[in-house]
Protein backbone atom coordinates (compact mmCIF):
# COMPACT_ATOMS: atom_id res chain seq x y z
CA UNK A 1 0.00 0.00 0.00
CA UNK A 2 1.68 3.21 -1.17
CA UNK A 3 1.48 6.15 1.23
CA UNK A 4 -0.99 8.75 -0.01
CA UNK A 5 0.48 11.88 -1.57
CA UNK A 6 -2.10 14.03 0.17
CA UNK A 7 -3.75 13.10 3.44
CA UNK A 8 -6.53 15.35 4.71
CA UNK A 9 -7.65 14.64 8.27
CA UNK A 10 -10.81 16.06 9.88
CA UNK A 11 -10.38 19.45 8.28
CA UNK A 12 -12.97 22.08 9.21
CA UNK A 13 -13.50 25.74 8.42
CA UNK A 14 -15.85 28.08 10.22
CA UNK A 15 -16.75 31.58 9.05
CA UNK A 16 -18.31 33.21 12.08
CA UNK A 17 -21.21 30.93 12.84
CA UNK A 18 -21.21 29.12 9.52
CA UNK A 19 -19.38 25.79 9.29
CA UNK A 20 -18.45 25.69 5.62
CA UNK A 21 -16.34 22.55 5.86
CA UNK A 22 -17.08 20.01 8.58
CA UNK A 23 -14.54 17.36 9.54
CA UNK A 24 -13.64 16.25 6.04
CA UNK A 25 -11.06 13.48 5.65
CA UNK A 26 -9.71 11.71 2.58
CA UNK A 27 -6.51 10.45 0.97
CA UNK A 28 -5.23 11.11 -2.53
CA UNK A 29 -2.79 8.94 -4.42
CA UNK A 30 -0.07 10.39 -6.58
CA UNK A 31 -0.59 10.52 -10.30
CA UNK A 32 -4.34 9.95 -10.22
CA UNK A 33 -7.19 12.19 -11.30
CA UNK A 34 -9.35 12.99 -8.28
CA UNK A 35 -12.60 14.92 -8.27
CA UNK A 36 -14.46 16.73 -5.55
CA UNK A 37 -18.13 17.08 -6.33
CA UNK A 38 -21.25 18.21 -4.54
CA UNK A 39 -24.21 20.55 -4.87
CA UNK A 40 -23.80 24.34 -4.73
CA UNK A 41 -22.73 25.50 -1.31
CA UNK A 42 -21.36 22.10 -0.37
CA UNK A 43 -18.02 23.62 0.53
CA UNK A 44 -15.98 22.44 -2.48
CA UNK A 45 -14.24 25.74 -3.21
CA UNK A 46 -13.72 26.39 0.49
CA UNK A 47 -12.07 22.99 0.79
CA UNK A 48 -9.88 23.82 -2.18
CA UNK A 49 -8.93 27.13 -0.62
CA UNK A 50 -8.03 25.29 2.58
CA UNK A 51 -5.80 22.86 0.73
CA UNK A 52 -4.01 25.66 -1.12
CA UNK A 53 -3.42 27.98 1.82
CA UNK A 54 -5.83 30.72 0.86
CA UNK A 55 -7.71 30.00 4.08
CA UNK A 56 -6.29 28.43 7.22
CA UNK A 57 -8.37 25.55 8.64
CA UNK A 58 -10.20 26.06 11.92
CA UNK A 59 -9.38 22.44 12.78
CA UNK A 60 -7.76 19.35 11.33
CA UNK A 61 -4.55 18.92 9.37
CA UNK A 62 -3.21 18.43 5.87
CA UNK A 63 -0.16 16.29 5.17
CA UNK A 64 1.48 16.53 1.74
CA UNK A 65 4.16 14.01 0.83
CA UNK A 66 4.69 13.20 4.46
CA UNK A 67 5.08 16.79 5.67
CA UNK A 68 2.48 18.71 7.68
CA UNK A 69 1.49 21.69 5.59
CA UNK A 70 -1.57 22.78 7.58
CA UNK A 71 -2.13 26.51 7.40
CA UNK A 72 0.96 27.26 5.29
CA UNK A 73 0.76 30.38 3.12
CA UNK A 74 0.02 29.85 -0.59
CA UNK A 75 3.49 30.74 -1.80
CA UNK A 76 5.06 28.18 0.54
CA UNK A 77 2.71 25.48 -0.71
CA UNK A 78 3.63 26.45 -4.25
CA UNK A 79 7.26 25.89 -3.32
CA UNK A 80 6.33 22.37 -2.21
CA UNK A 81 4.80 21.54 -5.57
CA UNK A 82 1.15 22.55 -5.32
CA UNK A 83 -0.47 24.67 -8.01
CA UNK A 84 -4.06 25.71 -8.66
CA UNK A 85 -6.51 27.57 -10.83
CA UNK A 86 -9.51 29.61 -9.70
CA UNK A 87 -13.23 29.50 -10.22
CA UNK A 88 -13.22 33.30 -10.59
CA UNK A 89 -10.26 33.86 -12.88
CA UNK A 90 -7.25 35.42 -11.21
CA UNK A 91 -5.51 36.31 -14.43
CA UNK A 92 -3.06 39.24 -14.50
CA UNK A 93 -4.94 41.45 -16.91
CA UNK A 94 -2.21 44.06 -16.77
CA UNK A 95 0.23 41.70 -18.51
CA UNK A 96 0.46 39.76 -21.74
CA UNK A 97 -0.63 36.13 -22.04
CA UNK A 98 2.96 34.94 -22.26
CA UNK A 99 3.97 36.98 -19.21
CA UNK A 100 1.10 35.44 -17.24
CA UNK A 101 2.51 32.00 -17.91
CA UNK A 102 6.06 33.20 -17.18
CA UNK A 103 4.95 34.21 -13.69
CA UNK A 104 3.96 30.62 -13.17
CA UNK A 105 7.59 29.57 -13.20
CA UNK A 106 8.56 32.23 -10.65
CA UNK A 107 10.01 29.70 -8.24
CA UNK A 108 12.30 28.31 -10.91
CA UNK A 109 13.76 31.68 -11.90
CA UNK A 110 17.41 32.17 -10.98
CA UNK A 111 17.92 35.92 -11.23
CA UNK A 112 17.38 38.05 -8.13
CA UNK A 113 16.99 41.81 -7.56
CA UNK A 114 20.56 42.85 -8.42
CA UNK A 115 20.71 40.71 -11.52
CA UNK A 116 17.42 42.27 -12.56
CA UNK A 117 18.49 45.88 -11.97
CA UNK A 118 21.78 45.46 -13.78
CA UNK A 119 20.52 43.13 -16.48
CA UNK A 120 23.24 40.55 -15.98
CA UNK A 121 24.10 37.76 -18.39
CA UNK A 122 22.33 35.33 -16.09
CA UNK A 123 19.17 37.40 -16.35
CA UNK A 124 19.05 37.64 -20.14
CA UNK A 125 19.70 33.91 -20.48
CA UNK A 126 16.98 33.22 -17.92
CA UNK A 127 14.55 35.48 -19.75
CA UNK A 128 15.05 33.61 -23.00
CA UNK A 129 14.55 30.27 -21.26
CA UNK A 130 11.46 31.55 -19.49
CA UNK A 131 9.88 32.80 -22.69
CA UNK A 132 10.55 29.55 -24.55
CA UNK A 133 9.12 27.43 -21.75
CA UNK A 134 6.07 29.61 -21.37
CA UNK A 135 5.39 29.40 -25.11
CA UNK A 136 5.66 25.62 -24.95
CA UNK A 137 3.22 25.45 -22.06
CA UNK A 138 0.78 27.62 -23.97
CA UNK A 139 0.97 25.22 -26.89
CA UNK A 140 0.51 22.27 -24.53
CA UNK A 141 -2.83 23.64 -23.33
CA UNK A 142 -3.88 24.55 -26.85
CA UNK A 143 -3.23 28.28 -26.84
CA UNK A 144 -0.69 28.32 -29.66
CA UNK A 145 -2.69 31.02 -31.44
CA UNK A 146 -2.42 33.42 -28.52
CA UNK A 147 1.33 33.58 -28.03
CA UNK A 148 1.48 37.31 -28.81
CA UNK A 149 -1.82 38.26 -27.21
CA UNK A 150 -2.54 40.54 -24.31
CA UNK A 151 -4.44 38.86 -21.49
CA UNK A 152 -7.22 41.44 -21.54
CA UNK A 153 -7.92 40.69 -25.23
CA UNK A 154 -8.51 36.96 -24.84
CA UNK A 155 -11.85 35.15 -24.70
CA UNK A 156 -13.07 33.51 -21.50
CA UNK A 157 -12.44 29.94 -22.59
CA UNK A 158 -8.85 30.75 -23.55
CA UNK A 159 -8.26 32.50 -20.23
CA UNK A 160 -9.34 29.39 -18.34
CA UNK A 161 -6.68 27.44 -20.19
CA UNK A 162 -4.16 30.25 -19.68
CA UNK A 163 -4.55 29.87 -15.93
CA UNK A 164 -3.82 26.17 -16.28
CA UNK A 165 -0.70 26.93 -18.32
CA UNK A 166 0.41 29.34 -15.60
CA UNK A 167 -0.19 26.73 -12.92
CA UNK A 168 1.95 24.25 -14.85
CA UNK A 169 4.88 26.69 -14.98
CA UNK A 170 6.16 25.59 -11.62
CA UNK A 171 6.20 21.91 -12.70
CA UNK A 172 3.77 21.05 -9.88
CA UNK A 173 3.30 17.60 -8.42
CA UNK A 174 -0.29 18.35 -7.43
CA UNK A 175 -2.57 20.48 -9.59
CA UNK A 176 -5.91 21.64 -8.23
CA UNK A 177 -8.43 22.90 -10.79
CA UNK A 178 -11.45 24.83 -9.55
CA UNK A 179 -14.29 24.41 -12.04
CA UNK A 180 -12.12 24.48 -15.17
CA UNK A 181 -15.14 23.76 -17.37
CA UNK A 182 -17.45 26.39 -15.87
CA UNK A 183 -18.92 28.64 -18.52
CA UNK A 184 -17.50 26.59 -21.39
CA UNK A 185 -19.49 25.10 -24.26
CA UNK A 186 -19.51 21.47 -25.36
CA UNK A 187 -16.46 21.71 -27.61
CA UNK A 188 -14.40 23.66 -25.11
CA UNK A 189 -15.32 21.20 -22.36
CA UNK A 190 -14.12 18.29 -24.45
CA UNK A 191 -10.86 20.12 -24.98
CA UNK A 192 -10.49 20.52 -21.21
CA UNK A 193 -11.27 16.84 -20.79
CA UNK A 194 -8.51 15.93 -23.21
CA UNK A 195 -6.13 18.31 -21.45
CA UNK A 196 -6.82 16.72 -18.08
CA UNK A 197 -6.08 13.30 -19.52
CA UNK A 198 -2.79 14.64 -21.00
CA UNK A 199 -1.90 16.09 -17.62
CA UNK A 200 -2.59 12.85 -15.81
CA UNK A 201 -0.50 10.98 -18.35
CA UNK A 202 2.42 13.27 -17.63
CA UNK A 203 2.37 12.18 -14.00
CA UNK A 204 0.77 15.18 -12.32
CA UNK A 205 -1.79 14.44 -9.60
CA UNK A 206 -4.95 16.28 -10.58
CA UNK A 207 -7.69 17.41 -8.20
CA UNK A 208 -10.79 18.59 -9.97
CA UNK A 209 -13.65 20.53 -8.44
CA UNK A 210 -16.46 20.28 -10.93
CA UNK A 211 -20.18 20.41 -11.55
CA UNK A 212 -20.13 18.83 -14.97
CA UNK A 213 -20.98 15.20 -14.18
CA UNK A 214 -20.11 13.83 -17.59
CA UNK A 215 -16.63 15.28 -17.34
CA UNK A 216 -16.16 14.03 -13.80
CA UNK A 217 -17.43 10.50 -14.31
CA UNK A 218 -15.47 10.14 -17.51
CA UNK A 219 -12.08 11.24 -16.33
CA UNK A 220 -11.80 10.53 -12.58
CA UNK A 221 -10.00 7.67 -10.89
CA UNK A 222 -11.29 8.75 -7.50
CA UNK A 223 -14.22 10.92 -6.40
CA UNK A 224 -15.04 12.63 -3.11
CA UNK A 225 -18.62 13.79 -2.64
CA UNK A 226 -19.42 16.69 -0.33
CA UNK A 227 -22.74 17.94 0.93
CA UNK A 228 -23.31 20.72 3.49
CA UNK A 229 -19.59 20.76 4.22
CA UNK A 230 -19.42 17.06 5.09
CA UNK A 231 -18.03 14.16 3.14
CA UNK A 232 -20.88 12.04 1.90
CA UNK A 233 -18.97 9.30 0.13
CA UNK A 234 -15.71 8.61 -1.71
CA UNK A 235 -14.49 6.05 -4.18
CA UNK A 236 -14.52 5.19 -7.85
CA UNK A 237 -17.08 6.62 -10.25
CA UNK A 238 -18.95 3.30 -10.16
CA UNK A 239 -19.15 3.27 -6.39
CA UNK A 240 -20.25 6.90 -6.13
CA UNK A 241 -22.92 6.49 -8.79
CA UNK A 242 -24.58 3.74 -6.82
CA UNK A 243 -24.28 5.17 -3.33
CA UNK A 244 -27.83 5.78 -2.05
CA UNK A 245 -26.83 8.85 0.01
CA UNK A 246 -25.26 10.46 -3.04
CA UNK A 247 -28.25 9.71 -5.18
CA UNK A 248 -30.59 11.19 -2.63
CA UNK A 249 -28.60 14.34 -1.99
CA UNK A 250 -27.17 15.14 -5.33
CA UNK A 251 -27.71 12.97 -8.35
CA UNK A 252 -31.28 12.43 -9.33
CA UNK A 253 -31.81 9.13 -11.12
CA UNK A 254 -32.44 11.06 -14.34
CA UNK A 255 -28.94 12.59 -14.20
CA UNK A 256 -27.40 9.20 -13.44
CA UNK A 257 -29.00 7.73 -16.52
CA UNK A 258 -27.12 10.28 -18.63
CA UNK A 259 -23.76 9.29 -17.23
Amino acid at each position, binding site marked *: MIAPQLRVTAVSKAFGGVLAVDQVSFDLEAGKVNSIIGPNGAGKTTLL*NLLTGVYAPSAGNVVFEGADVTGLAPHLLAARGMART*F*QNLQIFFNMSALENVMVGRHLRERAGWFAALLRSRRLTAGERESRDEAAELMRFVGLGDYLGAEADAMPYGALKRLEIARALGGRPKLLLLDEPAAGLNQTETQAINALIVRLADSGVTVVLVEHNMRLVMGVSDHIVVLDYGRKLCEGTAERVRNDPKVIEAYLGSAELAQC
Partner: protein
Amino acid sequence: MSAQLAQYLLSGLTVGAIYALVALGFAIIYNASHVINFAQGEFVMIGGMATVALANAGLPLLLAVPVAVLAAAAVGLALEKFAVEPARGASVVTLIIITIGASILLRGLATLVWDKNLHALKPFSGDKPIELAGATILPQSLWVLGVTLAIVLLLGWFFSRTLIGKAMLATSHNPLAAQLCGVNVRFVLLLSFGLSAALGAIAGILIAPITLTSWDVGVMLGLKGFAAAILGGLGSGAGAVLGGLLLGIAESLGAGYLSSAYKDAIAFVIILAVLFFLPSGLLGKKSAERV
Protein backbone atom coordinates in the same frame (compact mmCIF):
# COMPACT_ATOMS: atom_id res chain seq x y z
CA MET B 1 -6.22 61.39 40.47
CA SER B 2 -3.42 63.92 40.44
CA ALA B 3 -4.33 67.42 39.35
CA GLN B 4 -1.81 67.27 36.54
CA LEU B 5 -3.23 64.03 35.15
CA ALA B 6 -6.73 65.44 35.33
CA GLN B 7 -5.52 68.52 33.45
CA TYR B 8 -3.98 66.46 30.70
CA LEU B 9 -7.08 64.30 30.40
CA LEU B 10 -9.41 67.26 30.17
CA SER B 11 -7.40 69.09 27.54
CA GLY B 12 -6.90 65.80 25.72
CA LEU B 13 -10.65 65.17 25.69
CA THR B 14 -11.28 68.63 24.34
CA VAL B 15 -8.94 68.35 21.39
CA GLY B 16 -10.01 64.73 21.02
CA ALA B 17 -13.60 65.84 20.56
CA ILE B 18 -12.46 68.07 17.68
CA TYR B 19 -10.53 65.18 16.12
CA ALA B 20 -13.65 63.06 16.55
CA LEU B 21 -15.78 65.55 14.61
CA VAL B 22 -13.24 65.77 11.80
CA ALA B 23 -12.89 61.98 11.77
CA LEU B 24 -16.67 61.59 11.54
CA GLY B 25 -16.57 63.82 8.47
CA PHE B 26 -14.00 61.47 6.90
CA ALA B 27 -16.07 58.43 7.86
CA ILE B 28 -19.34 59.74 6.41
CA ILE B 29 -17.79 60.63 3.06
CA TYR B 30 -15.80 57.40 2.91
CA ASN B 31 -18.89 55.34 3.62
CA ALA B 32 -20.87 56.99 0.86
CA SER B 33 -18.19 57.07 -1.81
CA HIS B 34 -15.05 55.18 -0.75
CA VAL B 35 -13.20 58.44 -1.23
CA ILE B 36 -10.82 59.81 1.39
CA ASN B 37 -11.49 63.54 1.34
CA PHE B 38 -8.15 65.16 2.10
CA ALA B 39 -9.85 68.53 1.92
CA GLN B 40 -11.78 67.74 5.12
CA GLY B 41 -9.44 69.91 7.17
CA GLU B 42 -10.25 72.92 4.98
CA PHE B 43 -13.89 72.77 6.12
CA VAL B 44 -12.61 73.22 9.66
CA MET B 45 -10.67 76.24 8.48
CA ILE B 46 -13.61 77.70 6.58
CA GLY B 47 -15.87 77.33 9.62
CA GLY B 48 -13.52 79.24 11.87
CA MET B 49 -12.37 81.90 9.42
CA ALA B 50 -15.84 82.62 8.05
CA THR B 51 -17.26 83.05 11.54
CA VAL B 52 -14.44 85.44 12.47
CA ALA B 53 -14.99 87.46 9.30
CA LEU B 54 -18.76 87.60 9.83
CA ALA B 55 -18.38 88.52 13.51
CA ASN B 56 -15.92 91.27 12.61
CA ALA B 57 -18.38 92.56 10.04
CA GLY B 58 -20.86 93.09 12.85
CA LEU B 59 -22.97 89.93 12.76
CA PRO B 60 -23.88 88.55 16.18
CA LEU B 61 -22.36 85.14 16.92
CA LEU B 62 -25.78 83.51 16.90
CA LEU B 63 -26.16 84.40 13.23
CA ALA B 64 -22.52 84.19 12.18
CA VAL B 65 -22.17 80.53 13.20
CA PRO B 66 -25.04 79.06 11.16
CA VAL B 67 -24.12 81.18 8.14
CA ALA B 68 -20.53 80.00 8.32
CA VAL B 69 -21.62 76.37 8.65
CA LEU B 70 -23.93 76.72 5.67
CA ALA B 71 -21.14 78.34 3.67
CA ALA B 72 -18.87 75.40 4.46
CA ALA B 73 -21.61 72.96 3.52
CA ALA B 74 -22.02 74.77 0.22
CA VAL B 75 -18.29 74.40 -0.43
CA GLY B 76 -18.63 70.71 0.38
CA LEU B 77 -21.41 70.32 -2.17
CA ALA B 78 -19.33 72.16 -4.76
CA LEU B 79 -16.39 69.90 -4.05
CA GLU B 80 -18.51 66.81 -4.65
CA LYS B 81 -20.11 68.22 -7.80
CA PHE B 82 -17.00 69.59 -9.51
CA ALA B 83 -14.10 67.51 -8.28
CA VAL B 84 -15.33 64.11 -7.08
CA GLU B 85 -18.38 63.39 -9.24
CA PRO B 86 -16.53 63.83 -12.57
CA ALA B 87 -13.85 61.42 -11.39
CA ARG B 88 -16.11 58.50 -10.45
CA GLY B 89 -14.32 55.21 -10.88
CA ALA B 90 -10.82 56.65 -10.86
CA SER B 91 -8.13 54.84 -8.89
CA VAL B 92 -7.53 55.40 -5.20
CA VAL B 93 -4.33 57.36 -5.84
CA THR B 94 -6.00 59.62 -8.40
CA LEU B 95 -8.84 60.46 -6.03
CA ILE B 96 -6.37 61.20 -3.24
CA ILE B 97 -4.59 63.68 -5.49
CA ILE B 98 -7.86 65.29 -6.55
CA THR B 99 -8.93 66.00 -2.98
CA ILE B 100 -5.46 67.19 -2.04
CA GLY B 101 -5.49 69.50 -5.06
CA ALA B 102 -8.87 70.75 -3.90
CA SER B 103 -7.47 71.43 -0.43
CA ILE B 104 -4.62 73.46 -1.92
CA LEU B 105 -7.14 75.37 -4.02
CA LEU B 106 -9.30 76.11 -0.99
CA ARG B 107 -6.31 77.27 1.04
CA GLY B 108 -5.28 79.55 -1.81
CA LEU B 109 -8.79 80.98 -1.96
CA ALA B 110 -8.71 81.53 1.80
CA THR B 111 -5.57 83.68 1.50
CA LEU B 112 -7.28 85.71 -1.21
CA VAL B 113 -10.65 86.09 0.47
CA TRP B 114 -9.24 86.65 3.92
CA ASP B 115 -5.52 86.82 4.74
CA LYS B 116 -2.55 84.91 6.13
CA ASN B 117 -2.88 86.15 9.70
CA LEU B 118 -3.94 84.40 12.86
CA HIS B 119 -7.40 85.32 14.05
CA ALA B 120 -9.16 84.99 17.35
CA LEU B 121 -12.79 84.24 17.91
CA LYS B 122 -14.46 85.36 21.11
CA PRO B 123 -15.24 82.45 23.44
CA PHE B 124 -18.97 81.64 23.51
CA SER B 125 -19.45 82.26 27.21
CA GLY B 126 -16.43 84.08 28.53
CA ASP B 127 -12.95 82.87 29.35
CA LYS B 128 -12.94 82.53 33.15
CA PRO B 129 -11.43 79.12 33.91
CA ILE B 130 -13.55 76.69 35.90
CA GLU B 131 -12.19 74.41 38.62
CA LEU B 132 -12.84 70.73 38.04
CA ALA B 133 -11.18 67.83 39.94
CA GLY B 134 -8.24 69.97 40.81
CA ALA B 135 -7.71 71.01 37.22
CA THR B 136 -8.86 74.10 35.38
CA ILE B 137 -10.99 73.97 32.31
CA LEU B 138 -12.04 76.78 30.03
CA PRO B 139 -15.77 77.31 29.51
CA GLN B 140 -15.10 76.97 25.79
CA SER B 141 -13.86 73.43 26.39
CA LEU B 142 -17.19 72.59 27.94
CA TRP B 143 -18.85 73.94 24.83
CA VAL B 144 -16.62 71.72 22.70
CA LEU B 145 -17.42 68.60 24.70
CA GLY B 146 -21.11 69.40 25.03
CA VAL B 147 -21.71 70.21 21.38
CA THR B 148 -19.70 67.20 20.23
CA LEU B 149 -21.73 64.89 22.46
CA ALA B 150 -24.95 66.41 21.18
CA ILE B 151 -23.84 65.98 17.58
CA VAL B 152 -22.77 62.35 18.08
CA LEU B 153 -26.13 61.53 19.66
CA LEU B 154 -27.97 63.41 16.92
CA LEU B 155 -26.09 61.57 14.20
CA GLY B 156 -26.71 58.25 15.92
CA TRP B 157 -30.43 58.99 15.92
CA PHE B 158 -30.27 60.26 12.33
CA PHE B 159 -28.63 57.15 10.92
CA SER B 160 -30.75 54.66 12.79
CA ARG B 161 -34.17 56.31 12.92
CA THR B 162 -34.65 58.54 9.91
CA LEU B 163 -35.29 57.31 6.39
CA ILE B 164 -32.59 59.48 4.87
CA GLY B 165 -30.07 58.31 7.44
CA LYS B 166 -30.88 54.68 6.78
CA ALA B 167 -30.67 55.32 3.06
CA MET B 168 -27.16 56.67 3.57
CA LEU B 169 -26.19 53.60 5.57
CA ALA B 170 -27.63 51.34 2.90
CA THR B 171 -25.62 53.14 0.25
CA SER B 172 -22.45 52.65 2.24
CA HIS B 173 -22.97 48.90 2.40
CA ASN B 174 -24.04 48.31 -1.19
CA PRO B 175 -24.66 51.25 -3.54
CA LEU B 176 -26.19 49.13 -6.29
CA ALA B 177 -28.63 47.38 -4.01
CA ALA B 178 -29.58 50.69 -2.44
CA GLN B 179 -30.19 52.18 -5.86
CA LEU B 180 -32.38 49.24 -6.81
CA CYS B 181 -34.42 49.88 -3.67
CA GLY B 182 -35.09 53.41 -4.85
CA VAL B 183 -32.37 55.28 -2.98
CA ASN B 184 -31.11 58.28 -4.92
CA VAL B 185 -27.42 57.52 -4.61
CA ARG B 186 -26.32 60.82 -6.17
CA PHE B 187 -28.33 62.70 -3.57
CA VAL B 188 -26.81 60.60 -0.80
CA LEU B 189 -23.36 61.45 -2.08
CA LEU B 190 -24.08 65.19 -2.12
CA LEU B 191 -25.65 64.99 1.31
CA SER B 192 -22.67 63.17 2.77
CA PHE B 193 -20.28 65.83 1.52
CA GLY B 194 -22.51 68.62 2.79
CA LEU B 195 -22.92 66.94 6.16
CA SER B 196 -19.20 66.26 6.55
CA ALA B 197 -18.40 69.85 5.64
CA ALA B 198 -20.86 71.09 8.25
CA LEU B 199 -19.30 68.82 10.88
CA GLY B 200 -15.84 70.11 10.03
CA ALA B 201 -17.00 73.70 10.14
CA ILE B 202 -18.61 73.23 13.56
CA ALA B 203 -15.38 71.72 14.83
CA GLY B 204 -13.46 74.71 13.49
CA ILE B 205 -15.83 77.19 15.13
CA LEU B 206 -15.74 75.38 18.47
CA ILE B 207 -11.97 75.28 18.67
CA ALA B 208 -11.20 78.73 17.24
CA PRO B 209 -11.59 80.57 20.57
CA ILE B 210 -9.06 78.23 22.17
CA THR B 211 -6.39 77.73 19.52
CA LEU B 212 -6.91 80.66 17.12
CA THR B 213 -7.63 80.14 13.46
CA SER B 214 -5.82 80.91 10.23
CA TRP B 215 -5.69 79.95 6.57
CA ASP B 216 -3.67 76.78 7.13
CA VAL B 217 -5.16 75.56 10.40
CA GLY B 218 -6.88 72.78 8.49
CA VAL B 219 -3.76 70.95 7.36
CA MET B 220 -2.65 69.27 10.58
CA LEU B 221 -6.23 68.94 11.85
CA GLY B 222 -7.22 67.21 8.63
CA LEU B 223 -4.30 64.82 8.78
CA LYS B 224 -4.94 63.99 12.42
CA GLY B 225 -8.67 63.59 11.76
CA PHE B 226 -7.78 61.13 9.00
CA ALA B 227 -5.44 59.35 11.38
CA ALA B 228 -8.23 59.14 13.96
CA ALA B 229 -10.65 57.72 11.40
CA ILE B 230 -8.11 55.08 10.41
CA LEU B 231 -7.33 54.35 14.05
CA GLY B 232 -10.96 53.69 14.76
CA GLY B 233 -11.38 51.65 11.62
CA LEU B 234 -12.34 53.25 8.34
CA GLY B 235 -16.03 53.33 7.74
CA SER B 236 -17.05 52.99 11.36
CA GLY B 237 -18.73 56.07 12.84
CA ALA B 238 -18.25 54.81 16.37
CA GLY B 239 -14.66 54.06 15.46
CA ALA B 240 -14.15 57.62 14.26
CA VAL B 241 -15.37 59.05 17.55
CA LEU B 242 -13.38 56.54 19.58
CA GLY B 243 -10.29 57.14 17.47
CA GLY B 244 -10.57 60.88 17.82
CA LEU B 245 -10.96 60.83 21.59
CA LEU B 246 -8.16 58.30 22.09
CA LEU B 247 -5.87 60.28 19.85
CA GLY B 248 -6.54 63.52 21.67
CA ILE B 249 -5.95 62.00 25.07
CA ALA B 250 -2.84 60.10 24.01
CA GLU B 251 -1.41 63.23 22.44
CA SER B 252 -2.07 65.25 25.56
CA LEU B 253 -0.60 62.64 27.89
CA GLY B 254 2.39 62.15 25.63
CA ALA B 255 3.07 65.85 25.38
CA GLY B 256 2.77 66.21 29.13
CA TYR B 257 4.76 63.20 30.30
CA LEU B 258 7.10 62.40 27.42
CA SER B 259 7.98 65.29 25.18
CA SER B 260 6.07 68.39 24.21
CA ALA B 261 8.39 69.06 21.25
CA TYR B 262 7.23 65.82 19.65
CA LYS B 263 3.54 66.36 20.36
CA ASP B 264 2.48 66.20 16.74
CA ALA B 265 4.52 63.06 16.11
CA ILE B 266 2.81 61.15 18.92
CA ALA B 267 -0.46 60.85 17.05
CA PHE B 268 1.26 59.27 14.07
CA VAL B 269 3.43 56.94 16.12
CA ILE B 270 0.30 55.63 17.81
CA ILE B 271 -1.43 55.12 14.47
CA LEU B 272 1.48 53.13 13.13
CA ALA B 273 1.65 51.03 16.29
CA VAL B 274 -2.07 50.23 16.21
CA LEU B 275 -2.09 49.45 12.49
CA PHE B 276 0.76 47.00 12.88
CA PHE B 277 -1.31 44.87 15.22
CA LEU B 278 -4.80 45.64 13.93
CA PRO B 279 -4.51 46.19 10.16
CA SER B 280 -8.13 47.30 9.97
CA GLY B 281 -8.02 49.71 12.91
CA LEU B 282 -9.78 49.27 16.24
CA LEU B 283 -13.36 48.76 15.07
CA GLY B 284 -12.80 48.26 11.38
CA LYS B 285 -14.44 45.39 9.56
CA LYS B 286 -12.21 42.51 8.59
CA SER B 287 -13.43 40.86 5.44
CA ALA B 288 -12.34 37.56 3.94
CA GLU B 289 -11.65 37.75 0.24
CA ARG B 290 -13.79 35.42 -1.87
CA VAL B 291 -11.77 33.60 -4.47
